[in-house]
């Protein structure tokens, strides 16, 4: 799958390596900036509150 993607990137080898690195960085930025903050509330270790008002958050 990844080998297939790499073969289908345009340009010479150095350009394809550069493109791969850029794509990976963009993916990490998207994960850190949006995806992980969105799923973190559903993780079961982020809550230090007591009481019923924690029902809607991770617990």
């Amino acid at each position: 799958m990844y080998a297939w993607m790499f073969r289908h990137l345009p340009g010479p080898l150095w350009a394809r390596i550069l493109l791969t690195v850029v794509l990976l960085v963009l993916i990490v930025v998207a994960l850190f900036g949006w995806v992980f903050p969105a799923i973190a509330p559903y993780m079961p270790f982020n809550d230090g509150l007591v009481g019923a008002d924690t029902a809607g958050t991770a617990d």
Partner: protein
Amino acid sequence: MARRSTPTHRHGPGPLAAAIGIVGELLLTLGALLLLFLVWQLWWTDVVADREQSGIIAGLQDDWGSVDQETIAPAQDGPPPRPDTLGENRVWGTMHVPTFDRDTFPLAEGVSLEEVLNVKGAGHYPDTALPGEVGNFSVAGHRNTYGRVFEDIASLQPGDPIVVETADAFYVYEVTESLIVDPSAVEVIAPAPGEPDAEPTEQMMTLTACHPMYSARERYIVHAEFAYWTDRADGIPEALATTEET
């Protein structure tokens, strides 16, 4: 036997091998995503929150004016001033806990994870007392991740000071006890801690945080009792004096 040693036709892997290859790559990707999530949760949230909290504290120093760090303010006898909590999710104070590695952090109104605890520091349970009031001034904070303001909560011993600073005053509390309770134990933040139906008679404070570390199965609770307050214009309270030198 002979057929096995002859070169086979090279049309790439068969469909089964290709499918197994793709599943393998997906599993590797999943592993990489989980590792990245851990890096984000355990490291990056701290980086972001530390930066945010430093900015908030610097902003408060500008707004409130500087405190004379050389002068020990006398403990005041009169009733403590009532702090202005400004409104939901707003930062209205700082907390100083000399026992903690990071001993100063912002205190905001409310315990919303997204609006307060994940970004600003500690949060005041909205329906609990205010600093200095009779009742139970209760504060929540993260013990891991997001700046982990209560990381060292388990190191607090009876007698250790917890100081709340507002625009006008320092409120000094002293730790009385530490407990580990279930997440449902709302009585720890009752006006009279541990006695949900009792009328409060003392000026108490309560900190709540996750327990054990990296889990939310239980809660670590610290109760403290009001000791005295000082006027911010007079300098720092004695409780903070020893730490300023180190």
